[in-house]
């Protein structure tokens, strides 16, 4: 066995042990902490299988933002944890669940072992058509050009998700400020980090967007880091969340999909097809969409984590 192989097996064993911990841990809080670690380790696996763009997304969204949201919920639901222990399903149900899960896992494992060889791939097609956009990162090409429709619709899903979250606000505080008001020691570590990290985070977030035409990165990853910086400032109590009825906030939320749609309809008007970029302007158009999207993604993700309005606009 070579050294890389041994390292792969070690990473796989550690990832799976942490994965077992997130299911087996008694306390929800401990399980969520395990999940954050699991996501970060999984990012290593993504790097190893040649997907640095996905590794960034997994670390930022899958582990970071989802973890932050789960931690917040676990803290607020702590009081309900003790009575829930009595609702644990019986031994037979758990055994059946284990048998079913083992069967599904075995079927997936068999599918991986017996995949056809050589594997079908679209990598050649993506490489052959890269000249049409002028971008050399194949994943950005797929996201922004070859499968741009998926990305546009995903933005709409994010917006609909936020509408769903907001609609859970009680009647009298519709349009108010999301989440509880956070207080932190103004001289504590959290407030210190919330002053120190955002300048760095904003630079990293924007550079992830800027380099994404040629290197791993993109609007999602950059936007997620910007959202994380915003949330850090809110959690440290340095700036309150804005009331969700603010016009500028609404404008930021639809700016990304609106630019995307406008470019898409423009492609239709120029006689080609919906979302067809004129070859001469493909790269500037894609960058324009990505810039608008990054802002929208940052605001949408931040507000999704902040939750439904809980306080009146003035309070």
């Amino acid at each position, binding site marked *: 066995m070579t050294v890389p192989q041994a390292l792969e097996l070690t990473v796989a064993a550690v990832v799976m042990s942490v994965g077992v911990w997130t299911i087996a841990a008694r306390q929800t809080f401990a399980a969520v902490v395990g999940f954050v670690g699991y996501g970060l380790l999984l990012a290593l696996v993504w790097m190893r299988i040649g997907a640095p763009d996905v590794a960034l997304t997994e670390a930022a969204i899958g582990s970071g933002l989802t973890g932050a949201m789960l931690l917040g919920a676990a803290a607020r639901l702590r009081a309900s944890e003790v009575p829930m222990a009595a609702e644990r399903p019986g031994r037979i149900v758990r055994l059946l669940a284990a048998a079913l899960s083992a069967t*599904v896992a075995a079927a*997936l494992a068999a599918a991986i072992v017996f995949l056809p060889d050589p594997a079908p791939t679209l990598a050649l097609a993506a490489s052959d058509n890269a000249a049409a956009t002028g971008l050399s990162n194949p994943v950005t090409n797929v996201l922004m050009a070859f499968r741009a429709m998926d990305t546009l619709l995903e933005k709409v899903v994010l917006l609909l998700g936020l509408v769903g979250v907001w609609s859970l606000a009680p009647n009298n505080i519709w349009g108010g400020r999301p989440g509880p008001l956070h207080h932190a020691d103004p001289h504590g570590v959290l407030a210190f980090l919330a002053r120190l990290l955002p300048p760095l985070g904003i630079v990293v977030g924007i550079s992830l967007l800027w380099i994404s035409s040629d290197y791993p990165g993109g609007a999602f990853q950059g936007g997620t880091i910007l959202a994380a910086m915003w949330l850090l400032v809110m959690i440290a109590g340095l700036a309150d969340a804005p009331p969700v009825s603010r016009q500028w906030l609404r404008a930021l939320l639809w700016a990304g999909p609106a630019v995307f749609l406008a470019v898409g309809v423009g492609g239709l008007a120029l006689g080609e097809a919906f979302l067809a970029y004129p070859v001469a302007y493909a790269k500037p158009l894609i960058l324009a969409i990505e810039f608008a999207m990054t802002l929208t993604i940052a605001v949408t993700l931040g507000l999704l984590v902040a939750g439904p309005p809980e306080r009146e606009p003035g309070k």
Partner: protein
Amino acid sequence: MSTSIVFGLCAAMAAGLGLYGVIAHPQPLRKILAFNLLGSGVFLFFGVVARRGAAAGFGGDPVPQALVITGMVVAFCATALAISLLLRLFQTTGIATLRADALASRGTDPTDP
């Protein structure tokens, strides 16, 4: 064992673990967490398939990789909505359970306006 087999088996195990958690855990928050574990297994499975399609100098087939990125963002969005629903349930009833009888015994029926 090749890289894709090792991490493919990881993906299968994560999906199985997540499915077990979704069924066996009574707390809704643990179910949401387990569902994310299940999702990460499915994404990794797709990533391994992408890895096997590596060609043209790319580390993997970029099309499945891009789809996984889209999938992760949508999974995050669904998780955010699920957590908000759960917190609202807890806010209005004082208990975070999915069992209708437990809610009825507390005299708080969330379907009753």
